[in-house]
């Protein structure tokens, strides 16, 4: 699998996800500068976490209009897998690659901690190594991860199996207490219609190494390598 990670001014999880990818691919990860529009051949493009362009405007709003995103949209249309993590999720929602928006956390504070996710769908290149219903532990770190879409959109997403992850208790219940940011229906990650694009607030790259306290995130990168090899 040939993987690339976008680097915006203000990205700060670009290296982290590149390291996690390389661990699974055994290859160097390509770093893509935000002004680049002439990208190499890639099977996976990751839009990483951070504060693209400072995010002083609405989160991800400027990133969505960057030169590189126009090319990423074209690639996504052709089926190249795109993974938006955290700020990357905010950017790809702003860019219209996945539905919904990310609002300020209901608690009005930045939250950094491990959360439990229930895997809702394992029929994608991203989630193939998980079982539907499986509970995984992945950290979050964001101030604006409150997923919102209108009921019609949410019903459609659920009906078509496009909700990838939901915040859950360690035993898999979907409760208010397990929801760290007020997201509608506890949604932590969603796919596009063809499940080739995934946006998620939690950071799989932060628990992809036993030295960091867990490896539940690694299964996502391993699955991508397996599917896209």
């Amino acid at each position: 699998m040939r993987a690339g990670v976008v680097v915006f001014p203000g990205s700060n999880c670009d290296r982290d996800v590149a390291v996690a990818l390389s661990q699974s691919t055994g290859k160097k990860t390509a770093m893509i500068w935000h002004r680049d529009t002439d990208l190499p051949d890639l099977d996976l493009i990751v839009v990483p976490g951070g504060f693209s362009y400072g995010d002083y405007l609405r989160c991800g709003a400027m990133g969505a209009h960057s030169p590189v995103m126009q090319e990423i949209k074209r690639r996504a249309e052709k089926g190249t897998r795109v993974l938006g993590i955290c700020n990357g999720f905010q950017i790809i929602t702003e860019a219209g690659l996945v539905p919904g928006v990310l609002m300020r956390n209901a608690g009005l504070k930045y939250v950094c901690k491990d959360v439990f996710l229930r895997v809702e769908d394992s029929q994608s290149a991203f989630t193939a190594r998980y079982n539907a219903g499986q509970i995984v532990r992945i950290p979050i770190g964001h101030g604006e991860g409150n997923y919102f879409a209108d009921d019609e959109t949410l019903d459609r997403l659920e009906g078509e199996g496009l909700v990838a992850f939901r915040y859950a208790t360690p035993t898999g219940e979907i409760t208010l207490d397990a929801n760290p940011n007020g997201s509608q229906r506890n949604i932590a990650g969603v796919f596009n219609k063809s499940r080739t694009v995934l946006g998620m607030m939690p950071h799989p790259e932060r628990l992809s190494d036993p030295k960091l306290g867990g490896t539940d995130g690694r299964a996502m990168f391993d699955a991508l390598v397996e599917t896209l090899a």
Partner: protein
Amino acid sequence: MTTAKITAADIKTHGLSNDEYKKILEVLGREPNLVELGIFSVMWSEHCSYKSSKKWLKTLPTTAPWVICGPGENAGVIDIGEGLAAIFKMESHNHPSFIEPYQGAATGVGGILRDVFTMGARPIANMNALRFGSPDHPKTRHLVSGVVAGIAGYGNCVGVPTVGGEVNFHASYNGNILVNAMTVGLAKQDKIFYSAAAGAGNPVVYVGSKTGRDGIHGATMASAEFDANSEEKRPTVQVGDPFTEKLLIEACMELMATDAIQSIQDMGAAGLTSSSFEMASKGGMGVELEMEKVPQREEGMTPYEMMLSESQERMLIILKPGKEDIARAIFEKWELDFAVIGHLTTTGRMILKFHGEVVCDLPIDPLAQASPEYDRPWTPTRRQSILEAKDVKDVAWPEALKTLIGCPDLASRKWVYEQYDHMVMADTCQRPGGDAAVVRIHGSNRGLAISTDVTPRYVLADPLEGGKQAVAETWRNITAVGGRPLAITDNLNFGNPQKPEIMGQIVEAIKGIGEACKGLDYPVISGNVSLYNETDGNPIMPTPAIGGVGLIDNLDTMMTVPFKAEKEIILLAGQAGGGWLGQSLYLREICGQEKGAPPPVDLLHERRVGDFVRSMIHGKKLTACHDLSDGGLMVALAEMALSGDVGCELKNVAGHARLFGEDQGRYVLTVKTSDLAGVKAAATAANVALEEIGATGGTAIALNGASVALADLRKLHEGWFPGYMARPA
């Protein structure tokens, strides 16, 4: 040169004494103009010159075979093997944070980050030491909320994990909170950058943000007491832009990878003035600047304003000849300002021109190096007598433990650290909440252990023992995770040094710090002094915060606090018996008293016990380890039980002094039954007292027929902070 006559009022508003003004006249042989007076005032401020503390700071041990660079540079540098260096420092942002908590704390983080990356190190961890007034004080909640949000807002955006720190409350901080921020960075030993300017004709380059009118005279403000009108000083607080800082880090790292930089320094307190003077002074050079070339945020700025502005996220670089284009391209790529604003000369003078006119002509050395140094009168702190345990009320342990575990100083800090991104960079091996934070050295199986500590109530009662204890506690915390403690940075926060009793606290605390550093082979490599932390004459408790850094050679042996499993043996290592209740949290929280001598630190004992514990950790003999500090044995056990969600049954311990005494140099350990005999034998061989005090298991802490459920303790421990912050003001 235009010369408006300097008045007595000018001298006073610049915070200079009459004697200091006389010295200025001697140095110059003429009257200064306003630009020059402004420059003198910031360079000779307490904040920049250390004029009250210098004499005593010189006594601190600063060398060891592994010290690459001690105090005097932007940050200290130690050798951590494999060609790498750890670069770190702690710095205060107390005065600004009280006036404007969010921006004060945020720019404190920004400033200390720049001190570290200016030396060539990529910042890999932020820590902090925060002190607030009594929880009941009407301002406290607002200050806690603003400071924590400010640290989070800045650190999270620049993408450096905030991995730990301390938060304490005491009424002595009601009018002067303390915000001490520490950054640890990682550099290659052959790529360390210093600040001494060299090479006549070399270009002086300004990079980063534009200069505005913010923070003018910040260093002077930070060198004065507060009064009821402190709020009016809000305009002297700078505004931070973490996004620009992030770009500045990346651009500087990129430039540092080339061979373009001769020397570099950040523009911190006193901005362009201190950076240009210090660089020139260290290198014995002169500087000529053309002020109109300084990138400016606002129109009509004067040279006075540009020289004294403390606008953030700016650096000054001396480039090697012919490297301007390489450097400019990098900063343009990162969309940062880049301007050649002058060049080095051999005159030893600072000459500032503004549209061709000379507006300042000062000799550099007398300003930067011959700043005043005072030997202020001091009186030793009167020692208190040792408090006998029998004179302290003995409360049933379950009640006492419940009170302590949920008191403001011991309650869980989760509310605080969950607002900090402590995992970015994906190298955080030990998150906040343990004895020391551990960050991995990227791409290796080694790690740095970092801890910040001080127990101000001990320092107040006995500055010498308290100074020793602050150093020893960081050493102990690093040891408890399996680290080899290597060096410290100190952040000395005190009241007005012109009062002999405050100066006495400074002198004795520094002596105590020095003794502990010597005794533990643990030198001071950087630091910062913050004086005048007083409001209306009421000083803070003396608070010499210590930041310690150690090395874990093999992360496979890293140790943690939580109980791991049932039926493991619990051991207490160090000083048997004991029961020191003077200045303990038990005394304060249960009996409402703050008195007695604090527990003494026996440095030989400290070292013997610590070395034993570390060797057991490295030999993989232990399953958990926690040092004893505030609240003594029972609090340490409760923290181990709560974090591991495993209870314990205790034996061989009883009485309030034994259970809650704060005797120093002790650790709680757990071992598997199969390792017990070996660990006991090793302790005997090392001459370390080791007592078996119980076993893990169950869902409660049980002792002498009484017990407290972990669920109840957890509610108290985790409930206080969020409950307090949610309470309506």
